[in-house]
């Protein structure tokens, strides 16, 4: 396939599939299988793209409308983007599989699948685009489709959660636009490669630091990083299960991607970079501690997992903050593994809540139900081990690489942090496990028919697979990290110099 098709199809397929799926709204079964088919195709194209990149490690670039690079919009498939794209399409695919087997009322809405496809398209677009303003447009599309999917939730608080998220995200978009405007005044371009070149030529433009602060705030809100995380637990609790699994695993990675591009491409001047990395490490460590402690204090399985996302994102930010090649690779490995584990765990929580006599993921509601659902127990146990970072699951691989990069930059406190967070994770996940599977159910309730366990089983088996054979993943992450270390490669790729 030509590079143009390879790069645009992961965006175009779901983007065109969404309106087509609306036409199929009369036949819900056909619509859902159509959406799954589109998602499968997008996943296959992303895999093909990753395969092509093996033989062509310098990346691919498409100038939309054949406008030359700094003037038009370029779609860039460098190792970093493709890594994130693979992650998004893989987890999105499992989300579609879960939606197919879901008994939730919101999944039978005629606009459910179109917006799910839209989420997929906008996320792939945000990771593939090489233009800052285009990133804003795709990020806004992510926000709108996420909000719609949450507002139609079966949970009666869905609208409240959706409003909170939408409002905060609109503020974040204002920040992003201010950053775009500041960069345009200062450097007269919005192409990220061109911006990187011009910022490195005249780094002391006062607008550059202004833009850095605005971008930092915007990506912190998008990634639910510590001081701006307050909307995230509400939102992930109230969303329909397949949606909350997507939001808590791959939508927050948009912020991570933004930080990666900021600290390895855009703001490379020593002082600014020191500030940026310092902020990332501080909010990361605070997020790890706060997220773990807050997850212990929750009474709802989904909310517990949402707070745990806060802690896991904290680790990723620490990896980005150190900024060495190994630590960037560790951050990428951590992102990938976290999205697999967290989406699987949220799907299991949703599976339980859909089978409970009274729907809902609160612990009072789920206590003692596990006796009748042993398969989910095995998956939940494996998932919590992966979340805590115990071998032989993939959580161990990510924490191992983070520790290794910490040793290289002489930051041995990371071992204490990993241990502390692992302990907290074990406390809260095993408390949930104990309540649901070990505690007796006094009222002798019967479980009803509910969601299918296929998608979480698929994701957990991927977790085991990547825990036992992580070589391919580590290789991909290292290729991406060594690509990020040298921003001149990205600039040369996009601008063709």
């Amino acid at each position: 396939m030509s590079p143009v098709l390879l790069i645009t199809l992961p965006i175009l397929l779901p983007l065109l599939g969404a309106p087509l799926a609306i036409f199929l709204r009369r036949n819900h079964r056909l619509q859902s299988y159509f959406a799954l088919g589109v998602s499968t195709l997008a996943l296959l194209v992303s895999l093909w793209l990753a395969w092509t990149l093996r033989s062509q490690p310098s990346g691919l670039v498409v100038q939309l409308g054949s406008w030359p690079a700094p003037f038009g919009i370029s779609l860039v498939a460098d190792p970093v983007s493709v890594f994130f794209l693979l992650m998004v399409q893989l987890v999105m695919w499992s989300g579609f599989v879960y939606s197919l087997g879901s008994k939730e009322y919101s999944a039978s809405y005629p606009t459910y699948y179109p917006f799910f496809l839209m989420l997929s398209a906008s996320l792939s677009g945000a990771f593939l685009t090489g233009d800052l303003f285009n990133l804003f447009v795709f990020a806004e599309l992510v926000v709108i489709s996420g909000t719609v999917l949450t507002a139609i939730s079966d949970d009666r608080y869905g609208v409240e959660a959706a409003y909170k998220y939408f409002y905060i995200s609109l503020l974040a978009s204002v920040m992003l636009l201010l950053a775009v405007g500041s960069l345009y005044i200062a450097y007269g371009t919005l192409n990220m490669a061109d911006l990187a070149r011009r910022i490195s030529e005249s780094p002391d433009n006062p607008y550059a630091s202004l833009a850095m602060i605005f971008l930092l705030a915007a990506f912190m809100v998008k990634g639910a990083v510590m001081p701006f995380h307050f909307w995230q637990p509400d939102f992930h609790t109230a969303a329909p299960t397949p949606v909350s699994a997507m939001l808590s695993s791959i939508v927050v990675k948009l912020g991570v991607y933004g930080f990666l591009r900021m600290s390895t491409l855009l703001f490379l001047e020593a002082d600014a970079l020191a500030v940026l990395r310092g902020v990332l490490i501080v909010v990361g460590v605070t997020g790890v501690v706060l997220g773990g402690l807050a997850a212990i204090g929750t009474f709802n399985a989904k909310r517990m997992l949402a707070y745990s996302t806060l802690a896991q994102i904290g680790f990723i930010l620490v990896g980005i903050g150190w900024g060495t090649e190994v630590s960037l690779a560790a951050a990428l490995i951590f992102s990938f593994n976290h999205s697999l584990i967290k989406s699987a765990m949220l799907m299991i929580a949703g599976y339980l809540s859909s089978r409970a006599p009274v729907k809902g993921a609160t612990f009072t509601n789920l206590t003692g139900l596990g006796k009748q659902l042993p398969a989910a127990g095995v998956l939940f146990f494996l998932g919590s081990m992966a979340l805590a970072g115990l071998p032989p699951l993939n959580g161990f691989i990510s924490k191992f690489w983070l520790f290794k990069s910490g040793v290289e930059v002489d930051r041995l406190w990371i071992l204490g942090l990993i241990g502390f967070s692992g302990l907290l994770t074990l406390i809260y996940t095993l408390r949930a496990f104990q309540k649901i599977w070990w505690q007796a159910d006094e009222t002798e309730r019967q479980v009803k028919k509910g969601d299918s366990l296929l998608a979480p089983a698929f994701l957990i088996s991927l977790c085991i697979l990547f825990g036992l054979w992580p070589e391919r993943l580590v290789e991909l992450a290292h290729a991406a990290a060594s690509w990020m270390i040298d921003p001149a490669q990205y600039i040369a790729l996009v601008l063709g110099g």
Partner: protein
Amino acid sequence: MNLLMALAVGTLFGIGMFQILRRNVIRSAIGMVILSNGVNLFLLSTGAYDGVVAAYTTASQQISDPVPQALILTAIVISMGGFSMVLALLYVLSVRYKTSDSDQINELKY
């Protein structure tokens, strides 16, 4: 022109920020619109009025920069969509909670 633009952007930002911090959800939503209009004006002031004639014409005077105009066109459309979304959500909220006080829309605690 620059001073006028700066004053207008500043005023819009001030009013918008003040309204956003209010307790009434409808007022704060309107504050959001004012704020996003302030940002749109800021984008316009990044260079749309540097020249005297429109871009891509045969006139020989200094042309104005077309990029900020393209940017705000997109930004206006997005903020319009976003605001209509906010209004739709506010409608459902007002039906369910029977209030516009943001302190009383707080049932999502755990």
